[in-house]
């Protein structure tokens, strides 16, 4: 359908976003790759350098070449595989929860009932809250084993409160993150549901199609595409979950890859190590994205 003219124009139209994103990606990426091969500690730039490589000091003895040290160091970190596992588990669980509960809530909100608009906002609201705030609220006022609301409910029915962050740290983090992202899924799936042809719905009711098979054969196929969008966009954000782990103090047990990179960069001030970790995280994220696209990418065409 596109003519040569529109195609040329299309290139011009795409150019600003591609160029700006390319610069945004390539400049920091190039610097990060460069840093990842340096011994570069923000606080103590030259101690190890002058000690180990007195002949290889760069720009005023601030940094020195490190070869692949940063990479091997990062990948031999006992926390690395655990962090990678936590990253994947977190993404997988929250995605599953978002899609399942998002669909259920969307179906519920799609029904006619009193106060629809208010309930809709109540359910969407968590998505509007800053992650740091959400994490603080959940940690101190909801899940806290002594003063939290959930502990209070447990105690009031005579149960022993659970110390969530000590015994189920990952589950607690998944809960907090899901609380924020289920609403996003709900919102997108709901809008899609509402566009489902009213006539189709009525026809199905007339035919006496049982609700389950109506859902299975008509609603679900209709939702595949928005689900794909939800999964792709959420994956990107979930791969970089940070505040919930940071605030809840579960870094040692539920820490993910971005948290490990954070620990290298802003706690250890090891810019070389954090850069190497960042590069590794990018590679892994791209692998995840690649398989994700292979699995669900075709849904986008329809």
């Amino acid at each position, binding site marked *: 359908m596109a003519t040569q003219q529109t195609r040329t124009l299309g290139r011009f139209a795409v150019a600003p976003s591609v160029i700006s994103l390319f610069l945004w990606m390539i400049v920091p990426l190039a610097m990060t790759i460069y840093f990842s091969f340096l011994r570069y*500690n*923000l*606080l*103590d730039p030259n*101690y*190890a350098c002058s*000690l*180990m490589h007195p002949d290889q000091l760069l720009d005023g003895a601030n940094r020195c070449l490190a070869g692949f*040290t940063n990479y091997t*160091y990062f990948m*031999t*970190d*006992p*926390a690395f595989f655990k962090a990678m596992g936590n990253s994947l588990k977190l993404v997988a669980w929250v995605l599953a929860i978002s899609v399942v509960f998002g669909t259920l809530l969307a179906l519920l909100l799609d029904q006619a009932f009193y106060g629809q608009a208010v309930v809709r906002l109540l359910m969407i609201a968590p998505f509007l809250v800053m992650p740091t705030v959400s994490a603080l609220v959940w*940690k*101190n006022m909801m899940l*806290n*084993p*002594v*003063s939290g609301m959930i502990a209070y409910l447990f105690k009031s029915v005579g149960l022993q*409160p659970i*110390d969530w*962050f*000590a*015994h189920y740290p990952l589950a607690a983090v998944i809960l907090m993150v899901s609380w924020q992202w289920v609403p996003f899924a709900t919102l997108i799936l709901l809008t899609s549901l509402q566009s489902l042809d009213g006539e189709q719905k009525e026809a199905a009711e007339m035919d006496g199609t049982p609700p389950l098979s109506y859902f299975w054969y008509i609603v679900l196929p209709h939702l595949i595409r928005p689900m794909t969008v939800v999964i792709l966009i959420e994956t990107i954000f979930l791969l970089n979950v940070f505040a919930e782990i940071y605030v*809840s*103090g*579960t*870094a*040692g*047990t539920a*820490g993910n890859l971005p948290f490990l990179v954070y*620990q*290298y960069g*802003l*706690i*250890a*001030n*090891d810019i070389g190590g954090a850069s190497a970790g960042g590069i590794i995280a990018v590679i892994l994220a791209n692998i995840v994205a690649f398989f994700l696209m292979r699995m669900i990418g075709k849904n986008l065409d329809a």
Partner: protein
Amino acid sequence: MKAVVTGVLGAFAFALLATTAIAETKLTIATVNNGDMIRMQKLTDDFTTANPDIKLEWVTLEENVLREKVTTDIAAKGGQFDVLTIGTYEVPIWGKKGWLVPLTGIDDQADLIPSIAGALTVDGKLMASPFYAESSMIMYRKDLVAATGMKMPAKPTWDEVKAIADKITNKDKEIYGICLRGKPGWGEGGAVEGALGNSFGARWFDESWKPQFDSPEWKKALTFFVDMMKADGPPGVSTNGYNETMALYLAGKCGMWIDATVSASALTDPKQAKFADQVDYAMAPDTGNGNHGNWLWAWSLAIPAGTQKNDAAQKFVSWATSKHYTELVAAKEGWANVPPGTRTSLYANPEYAKVAFAKPTLDAILSVNSAQPSSQKTPYSGGQYVAIPEFADLGTTVSQIFAAALSGEKTVDQALAESQDAATRVMTKAGYIK
């Protein structure tokens, strides 16, 4: 939409004009959001009326965010701040790097408590001026301890502390004998665990920087800690930080709390604490070796090298840490709210001596020996931390591993073996171990 855009642009232009119209020297001060610093922000009129040409702009942040921002800025020479609030851990490291301007004109410098001034001095020059200082001590509920029929010694050992805690603990009533922090982070649980290690005679490294987590002292210390918290601690120790622990104490859930001496002013404040009139103090526990953990921290004001506004910054730092400021706070908010721990003269003041926690605080600070934190020989100075740049990383990792031991996910032996490996890795990479 158009109106909105015009409005936004207009407001933007106005904001630009407004900021350029002021010709006076503007000092950007990075501070931590604790009570004493907030109080200072309210009292700055006293400074600005005396120095009408100086305008103060505050950037108030929680401790960790502050540390990250300030570190990034000073190391990357971003030049965003004129005065920094930093601690005893940063000052010697940054001072040695030449990142801080030596302070001149500090009010009665000889009056500063020697151990504090010493921790802030590099090559004979004072690099940061202490705003307030703290050590650690036991804060306990008189009524709960009395009910056990036992007596809190002035200088208890850990075993005595545990015996009292065992008696106080009543989990059905949600009363816990002892509350301590265990949240990962070198300044959180790490501080408590570091001090605990010191008092048990454990050390992080031997004289040749070989990590010592395989030593019997650490095993004893961590075993004791984990057992005691399991028996007498509240749930959630492994993720409780300073605030969570304080909240527990204030709500009346703890018999004892061993933490920063500055906490006392909150615990005795009836607006915050449930049993404000029942607080008493004792020296932080040792193991009979006279080492009470050597906890020392001073939030201090420093001036980054490269600031264009050195004169104004010097004036401000001098004002904020002066005796005059102390008197100002005392006049406006009472002696109990004066920033503690920095000056000998404060503790000689009979008015201040009436404050119940004044003497215990001073005793705790005077018991500190930063040069020799453990009873064994160490190649490092420090206290609840090790004064080397690599410690922030190592202390965080080790406290994460210890938190897993507290939550029962790892055994004490596993935790110590992992800590030993982690420490060896960090020190090897940093070049201490060849």
